[in-house]
């Protein structure tokens, strides 16, 4: 077991290095000199070169990269050019909001998604399957920034049941969480359906039936447990991408999380903020994938024997 997990963990190191490198390269290739944004239009060359020195923009790109990575290794991410606050502090402060939203979305999406997928698979080709399949593919096709606006219009502005935007408790969270959960629900239903169909024809299901095990028990234990693996992957991936900030949903609903923070950083060309957000977000994404891989190990004995991925 340890070999499998150790291998996965060891692969993280070059991956994380690659991520910092790409992020650094991307942000440094950004057009528009942040120095001009900082000093404003009417400033003297002396001020410009002073600010340049302050933020370290006078050094070569390689030295800045080495500097940035060594900063990261000490657990620092630099300060925002604009607010002069430590980027890591802001990320830590906003992360619980993003986490809450992501958890909320998953709580709304997972149970109905799996249930619909299971029903569709067991009724394959029948009316229920068609309705569920049509419903889940439609959920995947609607852009979240549009469904979010419609939900905001209906529940926030017309019916006035929920606050249309802002950050706060459950009442504020409901609309963005539902918005996020819609495509996830569609994906989970589809994946559950496909993987249940894969399992249904397996010889061990036939054996279970031949042994006279009740059909409800076969569905609940034999089929669902074996069909779970791809479903866990999808849930993990979706959750990971919400954790790293649902940029669109948070921007629309004014939810004070990582996604909105990223977007603000991009608009203001606030390099330390952009780099910090992308690195934290991608690291979380990669780590959640690792957790999913480790979960496999426990759900699926076949992984334990082969010691490789799927």
């Amino acid at each position, binding site marked *: 077991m340890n070999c499998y997990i150790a291998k996965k963990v060891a692969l993280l190191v*070059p*991956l994380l290095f*690659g*991520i910092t490198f*790409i*992020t650094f390269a*991307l*942000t440094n*290739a*950004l*057009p528009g000199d942040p120095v001009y944004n900082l000093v404003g239009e009417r400033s003297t060359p002396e001020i410009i070169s002073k600010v340049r020195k302050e933020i370290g923009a006078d050094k070569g790109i390689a030295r800045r990269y080495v500097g940035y990575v060594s900063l990261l290794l000490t657990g620092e991410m630099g300060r925002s050019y604009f607010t002069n606050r430590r980027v890591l502090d802001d990320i830590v402060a906003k992360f619980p909001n993003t986490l809450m939203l992501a958890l909320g979305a998953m709580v709304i999406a997972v149970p109905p998604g799996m249930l619909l997928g299971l029903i569709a698979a067991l009724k394959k080709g029948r009316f229920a399957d068609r309705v569920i399949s049509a419903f889940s*593919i*439609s959920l*995947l*096709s*609607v*852009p*979240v*920034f*549009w469904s979010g*606006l*419609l939900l*905001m*219009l209906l529940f926030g*502005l*017309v019916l006035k049941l929920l606050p249309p935007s802002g950050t706060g408790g459950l009442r504020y969270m409901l609309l963005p969480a539902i918005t996020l959960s819609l495509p996830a629900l569609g*994906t989970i239903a*589809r*994946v559950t*359906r*496909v*993987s249940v169909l894969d399992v249904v024809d397996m010889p061990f299901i036939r054996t279970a039936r031949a042994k006279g095990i009740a059909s409800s028990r076969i569905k609940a234990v034999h089929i669902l447990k074996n069909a779970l693996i*791809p479903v866990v992957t*999808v849930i993990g991936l979706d959750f*990971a*991408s919400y954790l*790293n*900030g649902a*940029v*669109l949903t948070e*921007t*629309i609903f004014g939810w004070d999380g990582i996604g909105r923070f*990223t*977007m603000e950083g*991009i608009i203001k060309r606030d390099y330390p903020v*952009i780099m910090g957000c*992308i690195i934290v*977000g*991608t690291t979380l*994404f*990669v780590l959640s*994938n690792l957790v999913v891989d480790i979960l496999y190990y426990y759900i699926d004995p076949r992984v334990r024997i082969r010691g490789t991925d799927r």
Partner: protein
Amino acid sequence: MGLTGKIASLFIVSIFLISVFSPYLANKDPDAIDLDSLHMPPSLGHPLGTDNKGRDILTRVIYGGRISISVSVLAALLSMGIGLLVGLVSGYAGGKVDTVFMAVVDLVLSFPSLLLAIGVSVLFPPGIYTVMIALSSVGWASFARLIRGQVLMLKESPYIESAHAIGCNNWRIVFVHFLPQCMPLALVMTGLRLGGYILTESALSFLGLGAQPPTATWGSMISANRAYINSAPWMVLSPGIMIAATALCFNLLGDSLRERYGIDREGRAG
């Protein structure tokens, strides 16, 4: 192809035709500002109403679709091209080249895709080419992985062995013998992914990274008019319906392609 697949293809073909012939179908100027008819609800003169500058929404939806669809399709084809090249070279060369290419592919796939697309698109001044570059710099990786798998499978087949035996050089083998064998798979994969490209394109335009005003795209029409959603919801409804309907039809078409060719079974659209 089932009935849904047929209906979806019909819709896609009509959208394509409307986009190609939009200057003949819509007799109004999509960017013409008319201060006498601001925020007009749907009427005979303006079937989908007008926006906050009095521009005809139907005309803008038609012209916007032209941009949204061509950007998505071109970006998908560009991803396919890059993916084919990388996949063919990586699979055929094997060894170190393969290791390096696949490490890059894994790296790109380890980024959350929308975040990476946003990251790439802020590198360039906003516009349709920027969106195309952003979409394809994210999208090529999954194509490369798929094609590489196909090449690895084909490598063992007798006809490639014969090609080696009669002394074909590497370029000839890759481009004359592998490429045609990989094309159908690559094209099917492109079809499968188009719904996703439409959605990401609209998200980038919504964020203001795509075509700049006054040019209309479906995504930018929604972001420009979202402030009026309470007083004039029709301004936001029609472009959203178009995005959803187009993405849905591509996804439905993708499903029937998937069923027919049995690839990419993870159940994800886009």
